[in-house]
């Protein structure tokens, strides 16, 4: 029996680890109906989910140069009792509670990104505004288990109406983090939670 062409393409795609990519045009963008942002430049948005350790189960993942080089992961409207991201490889993740302190939310993030054995180190966490609401911002590093690459990361978030909104940017500490951060900062500053 001959393999159907679309099936072959899907299988090839799965083997190659690729995902469907959609261009995010500059301008007003809405993520999951509730988070709006103003993009100054175009981004690439991944349509398919994949067990990327910095963003498993994210609402959306955006990138400039490719997800292993820079990843902007959106976790939008995480509800009480749900996990931040999804568990991979049979691991268990803690659940979000709306009473959590920003410090505890950083721990949720840490547990999500270290599921694959990657190492997380918090560099700074401070109060801040996100989406027009009181929130928090943290900076961190992740030593990626798969290839030992040191990533730098920055995330901003807020808990609004008992739901967690978190956007995390990660990129290799060498070159890519500094290259893309100037585009990420104004993008996140433009965020509004409906």
């Amino acid at each position, binding site marked *: 029996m001959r393999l159907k062409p679309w099936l072959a393409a899907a299988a090839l795609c799965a083997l190659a680890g690729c995902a469907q990519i959609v261009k995010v045009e500059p301008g007003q963008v809405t993520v999951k109906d509730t988070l709006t942002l103003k993009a100054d430049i175009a981004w690439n948005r991944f349509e398919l989910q994949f067990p990327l350790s910095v963003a498993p189960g994210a609402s959306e993942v955006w990138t400039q140069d490719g997800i292993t080089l820079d990843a902007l992961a959106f976790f939008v409207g995480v509800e009480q009792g749900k996990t931040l991201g999804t568990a991979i490889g049979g691991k268990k993740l803690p659940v979000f509670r709306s009473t959590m302190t920003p410090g*505890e939310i950083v721990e949720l993030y840490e547990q999500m990104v270290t599921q694959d054995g990657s*190492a997380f180190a918090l560099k700074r966490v401070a*109060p801040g505004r996100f989406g027009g609401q*009181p929130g*928090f911002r943290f900076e961190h590093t992740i030593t990626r288990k798969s290839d030992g690459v040191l990533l730098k990361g920055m995330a901003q978030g807020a808990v609004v109406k008992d739901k967690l909104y978190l956007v995390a940017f990660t990129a290799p500490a060498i070159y890519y983090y500094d290259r893309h951060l100037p585009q990420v900062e104004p993008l996140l500053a433009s965020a509004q939670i409906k």
Partner: protein
Amino acid sequence: MRRRPFLLGCGCLAFAAAAGLRADEYDYPMPPRFTRPEAGSDEGGLWAFMDREEQRLKRSSFLIRDKALHDYVNDIACRLAGDHCPEMRVYLVRTPYFNASMAPNGMMQVWSGLLLRMQNEAQLAAVLGHEIGHYLQRHSVERLRDAKSRSSFAMIVGMALGVAGGGSLGALAQTGILMGGLAYGRDQEREADRIGVALMAKTGYAPAEAGRVWGQLLEEYEGAKAAGEDVASSNILFASHPPAEERREVLAAAAKRDWPGAARTGADEYRARLAQHRMGFLHDEVRRRRFGESLVLFERMLKSSPRDGQVQFFKGEVYRLRAREGDARLALDAYRNALGMDNTPPEVHRSLGTMLRQAGDSAEAMRAFQRYLELKPDAEDAELIRSYISGSQS
């Protein structure tokens, strides 16, 4: 896969128990020094593969690059290996699971989860001695030559190399796959245990500690099972119902023999040498979210040093992170107990503040946060904690 090299075939000493141990059972004449096999031979191929893995390991970000600790573990391994010491290279790896392995080319890996779990130098020597036993008997080469495992080995090496090209698996994972493909047989495990005990005794370590290593692992297993944790999927030891009990008993029986001059446990020295890394290892341990196992481990550590504020703090962290009904109270109790102990980290005040605030006791919570800032004014979360105190962050 994780615990495979040391743990596979752990039921192997059952036969020895039934047969009884002969007096000369532990006389181990060491083989002469090994030389590098011919490049064209099967063993040469295995070495070449391992050399390549070793190169990766050397560059790994997960290597613990602490010369003092490395030299300490290396020295123990060296004394156990005697004349074979120059053939070995020891690597300490930050991975919070119980494991040590030794490749046929002399590359030995010791994981941080093992270092944390061993109560003293003699227990570490028991595990290292066992691995050196496999090495001295060249068990992995025997496995390679076994027709049945050869095909799976070829496939596994192929897989590992293929994956390496894709860059999606790290060096350690690949070595794990490879060692898994060369899983030792029961007789080999039995032999490695026997040699391990012989080397321990010869080096002056109390052989009784070898059996205790198994006893401790079994306790953690029971703890995980009682906590309803998925024991089958997490590691090989727990998955295959090996009679680890027998192994513990036989090693304990071996320890009852007369071992003149073999009494060293080295608990204080071991603890002192690991001190600098202990907080990090404990942090990694609780982040595994294997709370049942961790609690058993921490209770054991507290039993041997009841004033250990670091372990007491992390016991509280287990309850806080587990967050089941009733855990908030247990976490608060653990933190409060830790306050009066030795070497309690400043973070205990932060966790205490977090839990108190959730319990509605904001006055005491603020005092705890303030104390945290006094002790760690430059903490990475100082701004956030200050905002809790000033009330600008709810």
